[in-house]
């Protein structure tokens, strides 16, 4: 019986021009959105490759030109000297911290176009380093990327609605259902199969197209990744299909069903997320970056004004670096000491931002359950490695790397200063103090995991289950005798 219904349904839909349009839209959008997401992640890969190449070639150039530098008799300014610890630390170091996109990155660009994914590290206040960003057209940021996640979240439900809004009700309105019931059909079977066919017309081509493109384009994209992606998308689409079933089972007219389903789409995909974002922002307001600038200036001023005091505190905090040398207070040590003082003073302000971001995340975590769109979007973004969790891990690794570099330079600079290496010698300004650039700490990328789909998706399963139960109850009523009104 199921086969008979499915084949007739397919035949019926196929003869409707709409179906061909839906199929082509699904395929075109799947391919186009994949291509955009893929291009985006490739562009990031390219930037990271160039950065790493630059870093390697800086080390190589330093190795190759060392002899020349050692024989150099002319005047060299330390800020232009790649063999000078201070020059490297403050101006010349080519040292990148990068977050390469994952194999799953083309799925959802997420915040990847906003969050920095590489940092050129220098010994400077952390606050200045982490504010770097890759320039993307702001309008593009406002409109969002046309990626697979967009097609999944916004377009697939519309296509499912477009195909399913008249399931069962079309038959009910035009009278076929009455005859079918008299012929002995089970209305639950009819609706279930109709929804299944209509869902498949959208879901199957989309998954086939997007998964094959993802698998073909990147050898690191595993079958497991493909299964997880398909699972998330299928659950979301199933939700919309069951919601359509739930609405059509109320037996209203097809136009009313379409209007109700579109209102649901609008509510779940646009209004609820936007309202929640607005309320989230109002409940957990991000501290003002303008105030932050103000504080940064203030702290920098006071640290610089009290530079001698700052330096004294620095040596108090780092007694291992203090020596018996008479005057260690050279420019570089002072600068590092000031940087550390500013960083310490700004710590509380940075924490305030992180704390608010955490609060906003928690709020969003809790309230994302109100809409399947936000639930699935966050699952897709996390899965593609372009979400907040991976970024926070990366920022933490960057902060650690920044610390490591600072530790390296402050130790080396103080030591060199105490050895008198920065004192001008005959024929040059200073001795080479950093002959081998490989000793500079390199960024170790530890952030690589794809997070598994979140447990919150189970909620979606529960919602689907609840919808199917309620729908079944209603549909059974359609075929049976009623006491007050005839349903068919």
């Amino acid at each position, binding site marked *: *019986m199921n086969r*008979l*219904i499915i084949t*007739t349904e397919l*035949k*019926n839909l196929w*003869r*409707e021009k709409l179906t061909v349009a839906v199929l082509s839209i699904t395929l075109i959008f799947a391919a186009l959105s994949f291509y955009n997401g893929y291009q985006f992640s490739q562009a990031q890969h390219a930037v990271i490759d160039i950065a790493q190449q630059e870093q390697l070639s800086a080390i190589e150039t330093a190795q190759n030109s060392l002899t020349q530098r050692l024989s150099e008799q002319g005047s060299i300014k330390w800020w232009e000297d790649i063999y000078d610890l201070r020059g490297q630390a403050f101006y010349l170091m080519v040292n990148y911290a990068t977050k390469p996109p994952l194999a799953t990155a083309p799925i959802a660009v997420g915040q990847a176009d906003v969050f920095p994914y590489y940092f050129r590290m220098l010994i400077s206040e952390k606050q200045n380093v982490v504010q770097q960003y890759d320039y993307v057209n702001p309008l593009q940021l406002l409109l969002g990327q046309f990626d697979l996640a967009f097609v999944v979240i916004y377009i697939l439900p519309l296509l499912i609605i477009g195909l399913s809004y008249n399931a069962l009700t079309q*038959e009910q309105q*035009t*009278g*076929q259902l*009455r*005859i*079918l*019931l*008299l*012929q*002995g*059909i089970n209305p639950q079977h009819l609706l279930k199969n109709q929804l299944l066919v209509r869902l498949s017309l959208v879901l199957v081509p989309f998954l086939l197209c997007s998964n094959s493109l993802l698998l073909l384009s990147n050898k690191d994209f595993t079958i497991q990744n493909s299964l997880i992606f398909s699972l998330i998308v299928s659950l979301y689409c199933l939700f919309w299909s069951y919601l359509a079933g739930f609405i059509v089972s109320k037996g209203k007219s097809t136009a009313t069903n379409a209007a109700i389903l579109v209102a649901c789409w609008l509510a779940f995909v646009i209004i609820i997320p936007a309202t929640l974002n607005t309320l989230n922002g109002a409940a957990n307001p991000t501290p003002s970056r303008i105030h932050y600038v103000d504080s940064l200036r203030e702290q920098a001023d006071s640290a610089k004004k009290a530079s001698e005091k700052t330096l004294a505190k620095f040596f108090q905090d780092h007694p291992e670096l203090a020596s018996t040398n008479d005057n260690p207070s050279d420019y570089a040590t002072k600068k590092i000491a000031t940087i550390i003082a500013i960083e310490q003073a700004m710590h509380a302000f940075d924490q305030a931002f992180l704390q608010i971001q955490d609060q906003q995340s928690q709020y969003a975590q809790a309230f994302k359950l109100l809409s399947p769109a936000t639930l699935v979007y966050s699952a897709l973004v996390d899965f593609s490695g372009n979400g907040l969790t991976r970024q926070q891990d990366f920022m933490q690794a960057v902060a650690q790397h920044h610390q490591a570099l600072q530790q390296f330079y402050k130790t080396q600079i103080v030591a060199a200063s105490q050895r008198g290496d920065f004192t001008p010698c005959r024929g040059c300004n200073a001795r080479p103090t950093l002959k081998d650039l490989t000793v500079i700490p390199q960024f170790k990328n530890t952030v690589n995991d794809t997070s598994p789909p979140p447990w919150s998706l189970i909620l979606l399963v529960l919602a689907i289950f609840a919808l199917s139960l309620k729908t079944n109850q209603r549909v059974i009523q359609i*075929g*049976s*005798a*009623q*006491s*007050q009104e*005839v*349903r*068919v």
Partner: protein
Amino acid sequence: MTTNQDVIIEINQLSKHFGDYQALNDVNLTVKQGEVLALLGPNGAGKTTTINCLLGFLKPDNGQVRIAGVNPQQNVVNARKNLAYIPEQVALYPRLSGLENLVYFSKVAKVEKSEQEFKALLEQVALPAHAFNKPVNSYSKGMRQKVGIAIAIAKQAKALILDEPTSGLDPSASYEFSQLIQQLAKQGVAILMATHDLFRAQEDAHSVAILNQGRLVDYLNFEQIQTVQLESVYLKHIKAEPSC
């Protein structure tokens, strides 16, 4: 003398009300094998309510109906197995052909036949052969009715219920339709036909029941139909009833 086995459609003391409105009030009717009963009555007389009770879509308040001895209230599946129904507008899938519609609706009722047999059915109801594979949205109303009858024949139902079957048909299509009905009756199908078409009722029916305001106000058997002017009987009953 008819036996109980001959009675296919049985309506016993059927009553139904919707809120304050009494749609049916103690209606008794039977339709035997091979009999065509025309159910007449003005709009709102209770014809459609009677049909809905017979089809198992409406619960009677009192009394009961039986289709080939089965009460749809007790076993709707079995009751419907013996039933075929043709509404005023035969609802078919417009993008499927007549043949495809026939095959689908029949197979849903678990009727297994070859394509040739299905085509033969369409030939039997005089659907032009060139239309077999054309989508139904290009069919006239008469052609749709024919496909509807073919579906009913394929099901080999013991009872056929028709709701305003000739409304909107041109006279020749209406005539053709009545021929098919006669043919089915001859094959032993009990036919209940709710209609406003007094001419067709007089021509085709073996018995006539007149409903007004939910009550069975008159019943004419075959002999009576032959001897009276149906229109005047009908109008007499309708006008005689006090208006509310």
